Structure formats: structure tokens, C-alpha cells
């Protein structure tokens, strides 16, 4: 089991010092994420789901417990460029073309010119944006921008993909479409994905495992193994199995909220 785990958290604590006193963002979080897993984090705001992802990415430093990524500390993993991170906003640079934006991390990581071009072509294809490389971000729709940002995270071929509410700002129709695309992409690339969301259907539809979290202090209240098959057409969301899982997630969220 543990040789499969690419992300391992044990008793992870994180306390922020704010003007209103200490806030416990994470308390005693234990979680193993295995190679090839698609793990969703769901919970109300303040439950620490984004904070956990940021700890994995070494954007926050835990105040207690242990956390390893690919067997290294998060900071070492960051230096080794072990993961691609997709933020809620596409965050593409308006002064660079789509291809230029995807090339950006490759330039930073020192890939050769030829390899840069090859990889850009490949990931543009992967997210269905072939032919749009010469456009500027502001000439594309929000959904296309977010696809470009996923392509950027994939371009340097890290085996972990961390996604922080990547589709949160998009409308439902675009979101459904991108969810479907993301599943296909995951199947094709076999990456390990950590995915933060606040949408129950999204979490259930995408994940092999759903981590339900609750706030004050931020902690895990339930981890649900999805019984759904790997092949998931959009209308799987109307099957009893799907609704069953969604129900369990909702129950978990409610339980975490009970004393509010």
C-alpha cells in the first residue's frame, strides 16, 4: 500500500496566526493518495481543502505532523517540479499567446526550444485546443482559457496534478463538458489528481475517492471510495449508484455541520 502512496499525510496540523487570534486551518489530517488516484476534496469554505492542497504544493508550511510527496518533503518536491497546479482562475499572461503561456513553465525549467515546441503541440492536442496556439488568452472564452491553463500544468509532464476549484468560475454547461474532458485526460495520462471542489455532483462524477472535510478546525470527516466504474458517461449521474454516493457525501457534509 505505502509504496503506492505518492502523497502521504500523517497528523497534519496547520495553525494560522491572524489578528483575531489563532485559526486552526487543519487538524490531525491523515490521508494517503495512491498513484493514479483521482481524489476530490469537498467541504464548506474554511474546511481546509484548499489549504491541504497548498501544503502539498509547498505554498503553505504545516505547523505539525508529517507530509511527503513522492517520498520527499513538499519543498523538495516543488524544487523537483513534481506536480502541476491549476488555480481557480486560468491566470494566463495576456501578453503571451496560448502557446507562449504553455511554453512558460518549460522555459523556466530549461527545456530545449525543440522540445518546448513539441510538448506545446502535444498538450494543446490533449486539451482539444490544437490550432489555437497563436491566439491571445483574451481572444478565447473562459472555458478555453481554463483548458489552456490545464494544458500548461500538463506540459512538463509531472505525474501529480493539483487542481484548486479549476472550474469554479465557469457556468454549468461548460463545466459539465470540461468534467467529461478531464476524465478522459486522466484516463489517457494516468496522472494522480488532487481536486478541490464545492460541487457534490462534480466530486462524485470525477473521483475514485472523495474526501469530505468540515471546518473549525479543518479536518477530514469521511473518505468515500467510489463504487462507480472507470468508464463514466455524463448520464451516469442519473443512476442509483451515483445518487447513493452523492447522498453519502451530503450526509457527511451535514454531519460536519451539525453543531453549527
Amino acid at each position, binding site marked *: 500500500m505505502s509504496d503506492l502512496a505518492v502523497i502521504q499525510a500523517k497528523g497534519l496540523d496547520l495553525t494560522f496566526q491572524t489578528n483575531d487570534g489563532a485559526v486552526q486551518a487543519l487538524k490531525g489530517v491523515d490521508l494517503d493518495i495512491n498513484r493514479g488516484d483521482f481524489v476530490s476534496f469537498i467541504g464548506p469554505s474554511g474546511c481546509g481543502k484548499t489549504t491541504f492542497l*497548498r501544503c502539498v*504544493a*509547498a*505554498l503553505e508550511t504545516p505547523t505539525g505532523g508529517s507530509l511527503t510527496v513522492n517520498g520527499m518533503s513538499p519543498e523538495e518536491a*516543488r*524544487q*523537483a*517540479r513534481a*506536480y*502541476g*497546479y491549476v*488555480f*481557480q*482562475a486560468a*491566470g494566463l*499572461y*495576456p*501578453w503571451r499567446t496560448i502557446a507562449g503561456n504553455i511554453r*512558460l*513553465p518549460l*522555459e*523556466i*525549467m530549461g527545456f530545449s526550444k525543440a522540445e518546448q515546441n513539441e510538448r506545446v503541440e502535444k498538450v494543446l492536442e490533449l486539451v482539444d485546443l490544437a490550432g489555437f496556439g497563436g491566439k*491571445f488568452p*483574451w481572444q478565447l472564452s473562459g472555458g478555453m482559457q481554463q483548458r489552456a491553463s490545464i494544458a500548461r500544468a500538463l506540459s*512538463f509532464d509531472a505525474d501529480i496534478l493539483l487542481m484548486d476549484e479549476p472550474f469554479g468560475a465557469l457556468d454549468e454547461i461548460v463545466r459539465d463538458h470540461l468534467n467529461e474532458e478531464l476524465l478522459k485526460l486522466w484516463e489517457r495520462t494516468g496522472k494522480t489528481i488532487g481536486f478541490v471542489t464545492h460541487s457534490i455532483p462534480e466530486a462524485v462524477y470525477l473521483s475514485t475517492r472523495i474526501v469530505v472535510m468540515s471546518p473549525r478546525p479543518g479536518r477530514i470527516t469521511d473518505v468515500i471510495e467510489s463504487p462507480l466504474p472507470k468508464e463514466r458517461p455524463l448520464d451516469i449521474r442519473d443512476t442509483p449508484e451515483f445518487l447513493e454516493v452523492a447522498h453519502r457525501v451530503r450526509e457527511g457534509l451535514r454531519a460536519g455541520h451539525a453543531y453549527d
Partner: protein
Amino acid sequence: MPLVIAAFVLWAAAWWLNIRIANGPAAGSQAAKLGVPAIFGLTLLAMWELIVRGLDLPMVILPAPSMIAERFAASLPILWQDFVQTVVKGALSGYVIGCLAAFGTAILVDRWDFLRRGLMPVGSFVAALPIVGTAPILVMWYGFDWQSKAAVVVVMVFFPVLVNITAGLQETTQMQRDQMKTWAASYWQGFWKLRLPAAMPFVFNGLKISSTLALIGAIVAEFFGSPIVGMGFRISISVGQLALDMVWAEIVVAAIAGSAFYGIVAFIERKVTFWHPSQRG
């Protein structure tokens, strides 16, 4: 007197025409956008001519535009010399040195937060001061020739450019900086690829403000002492001789130089910050 009346008739006619164009169907067209201000400007010029002639105003009070144009055409070599002395040697060299110095300082300020928090309030404060007052001191130190003018310009443009570049370098969002971090980018990679391009709209704002300041500095510094060439020198000497046509000719040169200078900077801005919402149009 008839000429004066003609001036006002012309005014009324031109104004009526502009109202018709501005409220007509073609108001949004490029031609109207250029035509209306052109009509307005030409009308003012014509009125100026008519009133000066009509009232027989002496040249020592207000020369007519035709006289200014005549003087301008007749004095091209002198005007060119003055232009080279004041604009090219004084303003331009000072502008380049001042902007480069500000850029270098901005990078230092950017690397050390302590320096930024200390220098920025001081810099904004100094940027609001009448720095042109340093002209007599700098003329004393660097002599009457263009070097002292360039020095005044350096001091004048330094702080506005510094404040704008530094503000621009702060422009990135936390998310963009986090993103750089996830790629384990070095300081300089983040600087060249993210923060400097993001700062460009601010940088150009500073460069545009400074282009005007540079000319003002170079001209006013000449009021405190100059060789016998230069726009500020010519203005002050011609004012003394009551040769107002020459003064106006120099002012025309200053206006052309000023708008050309600004126009060139704005043109480069369009090329560099084509992506910014304000430039996409």
C-alpha cells in the same frame, strides 16, 4: 472693426457646423473625430488673426498667427539649433539617464522590501515637489551648457518613473506569484517573465508623464543660465527684446517637440502593452 465682427461670425458658423457634425449621424466616424477638433482649432487661429488685425494690436502684445508663421519659416536654422541644444542634448539625454537610473533603483527597491517601504513614501513625496527649483543649483555645478539641463531633467524624471515602476512591479496577484512558485522559478525568471511585463502599463505611465517633465525641465533650467543657444534662452532673450513673434515660434517648436515626444512614447506603449484592456480598443 469689421474684421472683429467677421471673427465672431466665423466663430458662430464654425460652432454651428460642429454642433451639426457632433449630433449628426456621422459623429462616431474617424473623420468627425479628427474634423471637429480641427475645425475648432482652425477657427480659433482664424479668430486670433482677424482680431489682431481688426484691433491693430501691436506685436509686443500679441503677434498674429501669420506673423508667427513667417518668423518660424524665416528662422528655421536658429530654431533647429535651439531644438538640438534643448530637446536632443538637454531633455533627451537627461530623460534616458533618469529613466535608466530609476529602473536600476526600482530593481534594488523591489528586492528589499525594507527599502521599498522606506523609499516609496519619500519618492512619492519628492515626485510632488517643484523639483524644477533645483535648476539654479545644478546650473551652478554643471555649468551653463546642456549638461546642467540634462542634470535637471534627470532629477525631475527620476522619481515619477521610480514610483511608477515600483508600483507596477507590485501589480501581480498572489495567485500569479504562487504559480511561479509551483514551477520553482528563480527570482529573475519571475522578474523577467511575469513581473516586468505585468508592470509595463505602469512603466509607460511614468515614461509619459516624464516626457513632458523633461521638456519643462530643460527649458526652465535655461532661464537660470545657458550658452547663447537653446529654446529657453531664446524665449527669455526674445521676451526681453519684445520680439514676441520669435517667442511664439519657439513655443510652436516646444509644442511640436512635446507632442512628438509624447506621441513616440505612446506609440511604443501601444506596441508593448497591446494586450492591456486600455489598448485593445
